């Protein structure tokens, strides 16, 4: 078999059913063989960054690793942002890039770049293949590394002459990586200790991150929170890990989290952090975070997260689902009188600090659009949000009563992520409704992928929250940078209805609240992609928010006169 055939055969053996890719000079041998493998569905993207976000959305929606093809040089370099996005959010992905011939590597050949060097800091692992005999083993290893332990993207750079060379492949049956030992089972003594502490605490809080969703541990989380009667919130990436209308829900934490979540975190005596990195967007000013906590419990699959940002008193190194399941039998139900004052207090904070937004200033409010969209999601649709104000509005107005799928680029904060990721999610879960929420700024960064949605008649509904500016940056400039509005104006943008028309999908423009429902009705009853350009209040802001550099206690809410 040729190297190219081994690549495709190996992917088939790994159970791959879809590849997001773009051909070019250095991966031509693979594309020549591709038609012989009809089980490998190939989606021709319009830009390699789009391919990586599609693979990312695919992986987040169904749990299988996303697969990307790109050619050498600019093709491979265009994947870097998408790889970094997946790496930051621990999403399994395998990217296979073409490389110049082995004899030309290092000689500044056409479309040659040091892809290994460039991708090293943004991948979990990477390989450069210069021998055809290594392909079968390395592809198997790459899938193993991408999907085990803390998941992440793996890149394989394959020289073109290696794709054309031949050998009899030896299909690996096991992986031999002596230095790689992901934590599969937790230390049970720590599990028992953590469960004890949780049962004994007076003011406990659980915060759940992406790890709960990645491990499929939502049910275990609910069971543990209920048995230990512990108020439970999520990080931005953890939205969907805990039902937001659950009586114990604290909703989203962090510097744009809800007021009652922040109050609970700042007053808790025990904080259990599950499947999260405790990054700066969760803690705001670290030295002022959770000042009353006597016991930090950190559950994460990655031992290097322990103590990276917060030094825990108890470490449970395991995937969230396993750790929570193991912990559950050791949790004793607290005495009602022991927990009641805390729950009463949390309920009071929930009443004192509700989510608020400006209702009656004559403009269409983004929160109204989100509320209407979520009404139609019916606890079931996949919602993919972009980055910026739209992301936080989509997260804060998330209303699912059961664990659900909310996808966004939380760690890297990659603008332009949502639309291609929504395409990938729809390929992964064709039975699900998929809504893409984006600002106009982020949307145009990857809008060329509209062609992919049209070509494959994908039922992805695009909710554009258009405020004619880079809203989050504008809000920061207004509030924290002396009100100097510098380079945030996006008045000159395409007419999105015409843009949609040019790409071959229906588009609508909604400027008034009264027209909102009709537009959603149209989107829902029209098969295939639909774009709705919601012209929202140009001054709508995200609240609550913690001023940059301040601690969580300094969170500010929408002033009452605007509510």
């Amino acid at each position, binding site marked *: 078999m040729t190297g190219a055939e081994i690549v495709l055969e190996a992917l088939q053996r790994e159970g791959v059913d879809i590849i997001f890719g773009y051909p070019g000079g250095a991966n031509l041998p693979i594309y020549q063989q591709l038609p012989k493998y009809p089980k490998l569905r190939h989606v021709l993207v319009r830009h390699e960054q789009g391919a990586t976000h599609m693979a990312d959305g695919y992986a987040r929606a169904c749990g299988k690793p996303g697969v990307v093809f790109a050619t050498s040089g600019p093709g491979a370099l265009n994947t870097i942002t998408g790889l970094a996005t997946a790496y930051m959010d621990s999403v399994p992905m395998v990217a296979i890039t073409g490389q110049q011939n082995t004899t030309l590597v290092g000689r500044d050949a056409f479309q040659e770049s040091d892809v290994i060097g460039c991708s090293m*800091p943004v991948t979990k692992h990477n390989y450069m293949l210069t021998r055809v005999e290594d392909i079968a083993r390395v592809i198997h*290893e790459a899938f193993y590394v991408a999907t085990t332990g803390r998941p992440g993207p793996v890149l394989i750079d394959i020289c073109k002459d290696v794709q054309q060379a031949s050998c009899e492949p030896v299909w690996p049956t096991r992986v031999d990586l002596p230095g790689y030992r992901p934590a599969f089972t937790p230390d049970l003594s720590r599990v028992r200790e953590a469960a004890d502490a949780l049962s004994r605490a007076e003011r406990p809080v659980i915060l759940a991150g992406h790890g709960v969703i990645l491990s499929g541990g939502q049910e275990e989380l609910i069971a543990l929170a209920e048995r230990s009667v512990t108020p439970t919130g999520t990080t931005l990436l953890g939205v969907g890990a805990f039902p937001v209308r659950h009586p114990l829900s604290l909703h989203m934490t962090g510097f744009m989290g809800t007021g009652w979540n922040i109050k609970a975190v700042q007053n808790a005596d025990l904080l259990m952090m599950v499947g999260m990195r405790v990054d700066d967007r969760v803690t705001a000013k670290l030295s002022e975070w959770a000042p009353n906590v006597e016991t930090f419990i950190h559950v994460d699959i990655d031992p290097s997260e322990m103590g990276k940002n917060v030094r825990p008193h108890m470490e449970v190194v395991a995937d969230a689902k396993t750790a929570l399941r193991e912990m559950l039998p050791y949790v004793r139900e607290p005495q009602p009188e022991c927990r009641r004052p805390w729950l009463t207090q949390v309920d009071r904070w929930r009443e004192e600090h509700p989510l608020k937004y400006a209702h009656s200033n004559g403009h269409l409010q983004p929160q109204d659009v989100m509320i209407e969209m979520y009404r139609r999601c019916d606890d079931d649709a996949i919602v993919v949000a972009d980055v910026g104000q739209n992301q936080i509005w989509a997260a804060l107005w998330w209303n699912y009563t059961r664990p659900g799928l909310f996808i966004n680029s939380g760690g890297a904060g990659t603008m332009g992520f949502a639309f291609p990721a929504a395409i990938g999610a729809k390929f992964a879960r064709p039975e699900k409704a998929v809504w893409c929420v984006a600002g106009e700024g982020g949307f145009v960064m990857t809008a060329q992928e509209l062609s992919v949605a049209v070509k494959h008649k994908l039922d992805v509904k695009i909710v554009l929250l258009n405020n004619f500016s880079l809203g989050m940056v504008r809000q920061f400039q207004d509030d924290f940078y002396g009100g100097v509005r510098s380079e945030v104006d996006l008045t000159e943008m395409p007419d999105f209805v015409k843009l949609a028309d040019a790409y071959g999908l229906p588009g609508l423009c909604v400027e008034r609240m009264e027209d909102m429902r009709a537009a959603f009705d149209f989107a829902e009853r029209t098969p295939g992609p639909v774009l709705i350009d919601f012209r929202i209040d140009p001054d709508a802001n995200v609240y609550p928010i913690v001023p940059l550099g301040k601690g969580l206690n300094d969170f500010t809410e929408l002033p009452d006169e605007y509510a």
Partner: protein
Amino acid sequence: MSMPSAEPLSSLRILTAVVEDHPGVLTRVAGMVRRRGFNIQGLSVGPTDEHGRSRMTLTVDAGHAEVDQVQKQLKVRPGDEIVTAGTRNARYPDLYPYGIPIGRVSPG
């Protein structure tokens, strides 16, 4: 030769790693150390008696960070195996004396 004073060296740690001997491993290890903001003060690499494995010995200044973090960080990526570590402030006395590989903590 005078012994350096203990105070400025308190964040120094000596790590030895047995790594797979292929191109790019040095970049990988150095990159991980750099990314965390740790400074490499000394480095040596040489072959082991096991084919395909090399040993790296790094003197790392963890600066403001917790010194344990260097070790944890290096452990999690494939292909790079930290087998033993010593420290000048003898936080782990059983791994003293520093700099001399003692044996495998986690056998491959």
